């Protein structure tokens, strides 16, 4: 493999990692605060992608601009998900919670199939086929845009979680639900916000992704498994862990893809996952957890 190809793999891997991170942080945020694994995460991404597609095809809105419209919609869907489903799921055993979100995921896929058929829909703008040359490396314009917006959003989220009272409250609830409640924090309100932000991040990711890829009812599933690997790698519920996990998965996948056949390359993130879980079962960024 020549150096040029290797550099191409690194740059593409980084661009993908930024998108993966954006998808994974929402998942990890919801888990961190509520201790619920949302298997329907990918389907909310799919909804956001359809929203981005229809904003472009029906209203002529550029997907980048559509983010401003789609994000509030996804945030509202997040709070509805909390008050309609998750609120009740909090009281039942974990296995039932999984069944609920898994069922939701299938429900959304089938509803999308009925509503939009199984066909792929594409956002076809001139820039979808344009590339930017960075020395020997070519990055697609849309990937570059997506990468930039993801990183900006991730940085903002990080600052909000670390530096504001809102972030402090969220982290407090994540650390100890009862402790936070005793300190007078409105735990239900925090849950609702965690869902709003966790699902809302997909409102940014969806329009960006649909301009790079395509959308069909099953597109969310392509990312759900990856998001889980990333989140578990970094440590469930850990924000910086998700970033690190995304970086590892994005780069590993891309570099392995340049070296090996695609099937071998696809297994590499899982091999890394197993190796890391063997040495650090709590994930890379989680300190050993209290019972």
């Amino acid at each position, binding site marked *: 493999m020549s150096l040029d190809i290797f550099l191409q793999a690194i740059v593409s891997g980084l661009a993908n990692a930024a998108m993966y991170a954006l998808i994974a942080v929402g998942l990890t945020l919801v888990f961190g605060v509520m201790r619920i694994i949302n298997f329907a995460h990918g389907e909310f991404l799919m909804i956001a992608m359809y929203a981005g597609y229809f904003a472009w095809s029906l209203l002529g809105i550029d997907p980048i601009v559509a983010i401003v419209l789609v994000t509030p919609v996804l945030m509202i869907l997040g709070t509805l998900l909390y008050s309609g489903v998750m609120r009740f799921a909090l009281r039942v055993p974990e296995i039932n919670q999984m069944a609920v979100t898994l069922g939701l995921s299938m429900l959304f896929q089938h509803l999308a*199939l009925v509503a939009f058929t199984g066909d792929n829909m*594409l956002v076809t703008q001139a820039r979808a086929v344009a590339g930017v040359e960075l020395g020997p490396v070519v990055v697609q314009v849309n990937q570059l845009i997506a990468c930039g917006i993801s990183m900006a959003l991730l940085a903002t989220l990080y600052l909000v979680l670390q530096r504001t009272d809102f972030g402090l409250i969220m982290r407090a609830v994540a650390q100890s639900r009862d402790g936070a409640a005793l300190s007078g924090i409105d735990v239900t309100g925090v849950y609702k916000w965690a869902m709003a932000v966790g699902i809302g991040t997909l409102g940014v990711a969806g329009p960006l992704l649909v301009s790079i*890829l395509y959308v069909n009812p099953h597109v969310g599933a392509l990312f759900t498994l990856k998001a889980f690997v990333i989140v578990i790698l970094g440590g469930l519920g850990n924000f910086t862990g998700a970033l690190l996990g995304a970086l590892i998965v994005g780069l590993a996948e891309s570099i392995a893809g340049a070296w090996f056949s695609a099937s071998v390359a696809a297994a590499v993130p899982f091999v890394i996952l197993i190796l890391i879980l063997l040495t650090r079962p709590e994930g890379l960024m989680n300190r050993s957890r209290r019972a």
Partner: protein
Amino acid sequence: MLAQLAVALAAAFFASAHAAEPLKIGVLAPITGATAADGARLVKAHQLAVKEINAGGGIAGLEGAKVELLIADTQSKPEVGRHAAERLIARDEVSALLGAWASAVTMPSMQVAERYRTPFIVTSAVTDSITERNLQFVFRVSPKGSWAARDVGSFINYLRGKGVAIDKVALAYEDGPFGQAVSKGYKKGLPAQGIHIVGEETFRTGSPDMSTQAAKLKATGADLLLIVCYVDDEVVLLRALAAQRYKPRVLGYGGGHVHPTLLQLGPMVEGAFGIVEWMPDLKKAATEHFAEAYQAAYGEMPLSNAAQAYAATWAIALAADAGRSRDPIKLRDSLRALRLDSGPASLLPNDALAFDAAGQNNVGNVISQVIGGRFVTIWPEAVAGQSLRLAH
């Protein structure tokens, strides 16, 4: 006397009820799951054939019996397909089975049919071994996957004959059973026809990014790129190639390459070739009829797999008619003897629909090209709807 009349009436009633008992045909299709859109199209084609058969008075050889389709969802999953095949045969007592889209689902399902001694016509799966296992009840209307290499080789040499310089050919395929099987055929078949393969790249279905693969393909300097994948991956790959400002001629494989999704890409796919098993503009009377009827019924153009599903449905009905029996074993025997060189089942691009000793229909592929934002058949010239466009 009244009693006698009642008996006679009852006898007449039961006789007619018996005569009207339909010929049951089971269809295995992915109604839900990853390939649901394809399943929906297959079912439409099966239903169109049945509608035509029944509207024409049913099956004459079975006293005008109507055809009844029993459609089962495989969910695109092998184990679900196998169970559905078992249920259709054992419980619903179908006379024959049709299906089951992907090879991975078809193979376990047809094993069930073989065990229960019920004919199974494979409509679209291309894995070679399906008709190489000496199975007695398995037939296939679609060509073997490896035949694509033979036809692509002939087409490349046809292009060379037209003065097109094609020296280096590269392969890009999805690294699953489908892509591996077809590209193995290319790697084996093309060098024998004097075509040099200079590089190959693989990717997983559903990859969100193929920049690295595109860069490596560009580095091979190939002037023709053979692509084997599903249409969603092809969109990602073609965009990545365009971003690299690398514009080889491309020839995609299968129905995925003659797919409406692709036309959404506009000028980027203009001139692209596709090797496909059937096209709605083939110059054959049966094709013309089918394309019109399908368009009238569903408001869209049929894809190649729809034509195969339609031909297979007609083949069963015509075999039942010729053999005057709905018994699965007799039906198998009449399928073997079938030779349809005219009529609705003759819409595929060979002289006649017929099954050889292994159950295989000897049918070639055709080459399509995107001309003016439409898919047009350009080769072989005998069935071509329009002539090749070489401006690049």
